């Protein structure tokens, strides 16, 4: 059954959309990440213009993170103050990202920048995750616990000025790395159509030393705030959010996420991180191959100044 998407101006099979939403939702529920980094490329590969794909996926991420935030708020594992700092800086980053997006599209270099960013970020993060998970698995089998870095031992980040106290996370750190991190994630989110959870979670744990119990809920809050703003901005400036496309992905996504979360609970932490790392790495490699291999079609056509 085909459904005509009014903003994308093309029909797409509604079951394919629900299925893509559900599959990505399943993985995101299993790994606790938003899944935008999978969904946006999937939509682009299935023929939706990158402009509409990136903008519409941001609305799907809003729905996904909203249901997640509610669950973590009930468990009271969200640092609202840290989330607010990250969200406000994320909004600034997102505004810059939406602007850069438009400028790159105008000069025809958006696709290559998106591909390069995917290769760089997914490659790096995927590699780090996979290596860390393999080391954890090996250590567990040998019975030698990995040296755990104590939360008190801060690096150069501790020396920065403008310190702020975050009670819930039991942190007294400079606001500068917090704001930089939030802005960077917001920028990437708008440019690449990703929530950025897979970058934010390790950054909060390893760079800012936020307690692991607080990390997911706070990240989801930041994703919700930043992506709601991105959806609004993409609608207001680029008019590329397809609400019908977004809705189909949301419905598939939120249902898939519930089953994914159940599946995730039956897997061990290290196995989960290894699988996620490999998945992230695979998407990055797919983009790398496209960049390096000689394309079958050297020419492309697009509307001047638009999609």
């Amino acid at each position, binding site marked *: 059954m085909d459904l005509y998407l009014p903003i994308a101006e093309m029909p797409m099979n509604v079951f394919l959309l629900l299925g893509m939403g559900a599959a990505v939702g399943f993985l995101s529920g299993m790994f606790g990440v938003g899944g935008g980094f999978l969904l946006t490329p999937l939509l682009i590969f299935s023929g939706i213009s990158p402009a509409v794909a990136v903008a519409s996926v941001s609305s799907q991420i809003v729905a996904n993170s909203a249901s997640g935030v509610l669950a973590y708020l009930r468990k009271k594992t969200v640092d609202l103050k840290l989330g607010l700092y990250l969200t406000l800086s994320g909004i600034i980053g997102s505004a810059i990202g939406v602007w850069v997006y438009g400028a790159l599209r105008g000069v025809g270099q958006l696709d290559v920048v998106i591909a390069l960013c995917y290769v760089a970020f997914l490659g790096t993060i995927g590699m780090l995750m996979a290596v860390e998970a393999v080391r954890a698995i090996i250590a567990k089998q040998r019975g030698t616990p990995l040296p755990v870095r104590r939360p008190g031992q801060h690096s150069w980040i501790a020396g920065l000025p403008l310190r702020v106290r975050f009670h819930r996370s039991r942190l007294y750190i400079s606001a500068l790395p917090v704001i930089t991190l939030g802005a960077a994630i917001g920028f990437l989110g708008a440019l690449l159509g990703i929530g950025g959870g897979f970058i934010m979670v390790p950054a909060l744990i390893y760079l800012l030393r936020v307690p692991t119990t607080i990390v997911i809920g706070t990240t989801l809050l930041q994703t919700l705030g930043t992506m709601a703003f991105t959806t609004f901005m993409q609608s207001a400036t680029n008019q590329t959010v397809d609400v019908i496309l977004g809705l189909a992905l949301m419905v598939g996504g939120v249902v898939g996420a519930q089953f994914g979360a159940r599946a995730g609970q039956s897997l061990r932490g290290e196995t989960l991180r290894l699988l996620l790392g490999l998945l992230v790495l695979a998407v990055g490699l797919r983009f790398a191959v496209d960049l390096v291999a000689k394309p079958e079609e050297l020419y492309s056509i697009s509307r*001047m100044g638009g999609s």
Partner: protein
Amino acid sequence: MIARSLLAAILVLAPSLLRAETLVTALSTERVSIESNFTGSGVVIFGTVERDQQTVARGAPYEVVVTLTGPLRPMVARRKERVAGIWINRTSSELPRVPSFLAIATTAPMADVAGNPVRARQGLGFDMLPTRGLPDALPPIRTEFDGAFFRLMQKEGLFSLNEGGVEFLSPQLFRAPIALPSNVPIGWYTATVYLFSGGALLAKTTQDFSILKGGFEQAITNLAHRQPALYGLATVVVACFTGWLAGVAFRRD
């Protein structure tokens, strides 16, 4: 003096007394509406060649060409080149006013219908359609970017040539069905019918029709374009509501 100007007037008017054929054409629809289940559609162009006793006898058969032209748009063609090991868009060329859709149907192979000079003046055919400026007596000069534009538009199904797609039902009556693919651009379309005989253009008609989104689809598009802030806000509210609903529906504690 008066007699001479009268004579001149008669000489000027004389060819029109020897009447040429007239074309009468009609479209099967004046408005194609795109609803939520739209997967493509079609339009049929009908026509008759009207002639009477004054019409000169033709040695060659009638040939008809029908074109369906979508809204004109500025386009850019780009070419990828290898830079530092990766393929990126390097060179580009602007095509300031080109159709977003062009279907051509003919009764016979294009080259047999009319010669290049006649088609060049009308901008008729993929090889004669000007990508910069207006049709001219000389065929347009094609760059590699123009070639890529025509090739890619055909690959996307937006440009098509159907030689033999116009069918004469009787010596005077013809019909040309033209398919509209699912990715057909929205806007005003012009159906142009050309009547040829022996390589000469005898008559030409144009008719407009529109391809518009249906009520619900159009309402969403209007909101997105005219009230973008409200549309954005509504989308965020819908997303938050969906998320909340899922959270409540699947709550396990």
